[in-house]
């Protein structure tokens, strides 16, 4: 497969996954805000944590702009922000456009439909009043996109690059959500804060589309340690870090199998080391150490894996 094509597949998928995460986070945060206003918590902190997860520095807002409205606009529509949903969808589409000869036309059509829908001034106007519809459209579009990739393309080398893009992004985002929220919430130990803590941890699960799956596993109140266990270590939940890394390892393996069967690439080694830790280290040990340290090391390593992949297959 052409390196340029592999690159475009990787980034198309990665940008789409990123758009989906931003959309869901915003959706969850808007809901949480409504709940928090009842609980009397400061929402400054609430929005700061969101921009921290997304590594975003929101430009100074005018005095007449409500902070949440300004932030939401910056993260949703603003094309000057390369991390906004519209910028991500635009780039996913640009990448797809550059390889229209390679991806199935159904995939292109759905991506294109979503782009035009989100660009429609009338839809944007409606979305500003009720953002839910907009974020739903992005999430549904992403599910449709990945579903079509899985169901209509051959699971060949190109498909593996789509998987890599998706799971690199997913691992990264899940790790960051855990990292920031754990940091923020570990001081909520006062019994009076229990309901606040529960709200927040439920939001963490929802941010990873994990709430219902978690509840089917664990009955009762949402508990931080169980959330960490589920999102970090669960081997069968498709949005957990371990699942994502294993999927990346499988894809790399499939790409390398025919080309260099005996050779381990740098990305392979890194993934193997990370997976050994996530598979064999007991949760108690992970929680007993500095979790923030642990998570930021993983975030860094996911970045290294991504760079190693790009280098090996001469992606850009």
């Amino acid at each position, binding site marked *: *497969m*052409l*390196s*340029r*094509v*592999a690159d475009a597949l990787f980034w198309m998928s990665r940008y789409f996954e990123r758009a989906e995460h931003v959309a869901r986070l915003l959706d969850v945060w808007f809901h949480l805000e409504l709940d928090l206003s009842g609980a009397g918590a400061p929402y400054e902190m609430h929005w700061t944590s969101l921009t921290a997860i997304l590594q975003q520095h929101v430009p100074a807002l005018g005095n007449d702009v409500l902070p949440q409205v300004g932030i939401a606009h910056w993260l949703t529509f603003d*094309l000057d922000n390369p991390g906004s949903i519209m910028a991500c969808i*635009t780039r996913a589409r*640009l990448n797809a*456009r*550059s*390889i*229209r*000869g*390679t991806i199935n*036309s159904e995939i*292109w*059509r759905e991506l*294109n*439909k979503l782009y*035009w829908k989100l660009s429609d001034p009338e839809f944007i106007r409606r979305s500003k009043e009720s953002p839910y519809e907009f974020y739903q459209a992005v999430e549904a579009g992403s599910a449709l996109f990945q579903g079509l990739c899985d169901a209509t393309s051959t699971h060949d*080398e190109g498909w593996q690059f789509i998987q890599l893009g998706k799971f690199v992004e997913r691992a990264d985002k899940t790790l960051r959500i855990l990292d920031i929220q754990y940091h923020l919430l570990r001081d909520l130990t006062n019994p009076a804060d229990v309901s606040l803590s529960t709200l927040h941890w439920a939001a963490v699960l929802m941010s990873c589309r994990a709430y219902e799956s978690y509840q089917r596993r664990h009955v009762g109140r949402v508990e931080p340690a169980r959330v960490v266990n589920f999102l970090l270590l669960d081997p069968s939940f498709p949005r957990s870090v371990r699942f994502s890394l294993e999927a990346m390892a499988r894809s790399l393996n499939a*790409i390398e199998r025919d*080309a260099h069967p005996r050779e381990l690439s740098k990305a392979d080694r890194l993934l193997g080391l990370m997976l050994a830790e996530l598979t064999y280290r007991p949760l108690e040990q992970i929680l007993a150490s500095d979790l923030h340290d642990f998570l930021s090391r993983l975030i860094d390593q996911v970045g290294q894996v991504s760079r190693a992949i790009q280098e090996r*297959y*001469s992606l850009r």
Partner: protein
Amino acid sequence: MLWSEYPCMSGVAEVAEREGLFTGYTLGQAYDEMFARPGEPRWHYASLHRQLSSLSYDAFRRIKVMTDLSMLQDGVGFTVYRQEEGIERVWPMDPIPRIIPAQEWQVIERGLIQRILALNLFLKDVYNDQFILRDRVIDPRLVFEGAFFRREFVGAKVPRDIYIHICGTDLIRDVNGRYLVLEDNGRTPSGVSYMLTNRQVLKRVWPQVFESYTVQSNDDYPSALLDVLRYIAPGGRPDPTVVLLSPGIYNSAYFEHTFLAQRMGIELVEGRDLVVDQNRVYMRTTRGLERVDVIYRRIDDDFLDPLVFRPDSILGVPGLINAYRAGQVSLANGVGTGIADDKGIYPFVPDMIRYYLKQDPILDNVETFRPLVPSHLQHILANLERLVVKTVNESGGYGMLIGPASTAEQRDKFREHIRQQPRNFIAQPVVQLSTHPTFVEGGIEGRHVDLRPFVLCGEKVVVVPGALTRVALPRGSLVVNSSQGGGSKDTWVLAE
């Protein structure tokens, strides 16, 4: 389906006719594709006419809206880029199909086959023995002074002696309905993807219209094209690697490039994906370099290889031309085919047909005056306001003077140019292109159309039954180019 099967519908149709879509449809002096006389459709349009007449304006408008939406969602269009996101324009399709009866098509087909055979024999001749020039059928200076004659390729061999593998020939109809060849596009003709997607879209948005017709499928085009490309592999190599070389997403025909690459199942490459080593062409892949045998190139000669042609080209591949000359890679179309569709050579195509094939041309040219001939020059200068003057090396509707629509100042300028560079111009009488019912704001009106069938030349010559019909959307306009406000139509070739 016979009309008599639906006796009850005739009354309905008559009512709709009075208030329907065709209200106010007028016939001009041009040949109308649908109507022989006012209100009287030709036999092959009768059924379509009935269906249209039974539809209300709003019902048909919905079909048009669905057509536009479908084109937008499929990303069928050309692009004008500004910032990163770009301005994408859909090439508007009119949902009223153009219909060509089988017998009429057979004549067109035979004429096109004859024409491409002659053009390829001409190219082989001028790049080798040059008999036609020595016999003075064509003035040698016309060829040697042509901007697209590549003297570097004189004596070079091309696989199977085919130079033009894909030709898009523009046909028009005069006031009597006679098909005439307006020009041959033998370099990198485009538009075939619209021929194919227009059919797909029309089937989706207005399936009922197909019910009373047996339309020949045009869907075989990509396979037929791939057959041609495989046929010209260097040294007849079995199972060759074929790629499509595109200038990239900023090219206005990029949609077509991806469409064809996908339908043929071949890789779409850009110049930067290819590398030449020891006269062999490779593409850069995730597993290293992979050999390429045949390139369907959609880049003009000038940009193919910065070492040979334009040194500032970043679209091309350094060393490609040497590899081509060494017979290590095949190009379709070949290099230097532009001399065959040079408008200065065009008037001689009928002579080529007689010279090489010993046949009479089946399709006629449009009457053409050449300023190099003194009597023609006189005629041109005296009748400029009644003629269309074309620059020989321009296409896409650029570099033209349309006499009746020109100002005295423009005509003076062209007179001067023509006197100074007679080789660079030709002049033709204004042909009233045929009109075809077309949906516009307010109903159906006649608009001028042309016809571009696509001819493939490999082991045999294939004309896939179908064509691109371009339509000039502004009222009275004779310019059908997409860059100048044109649209397109699905084009049906009937089986019977």
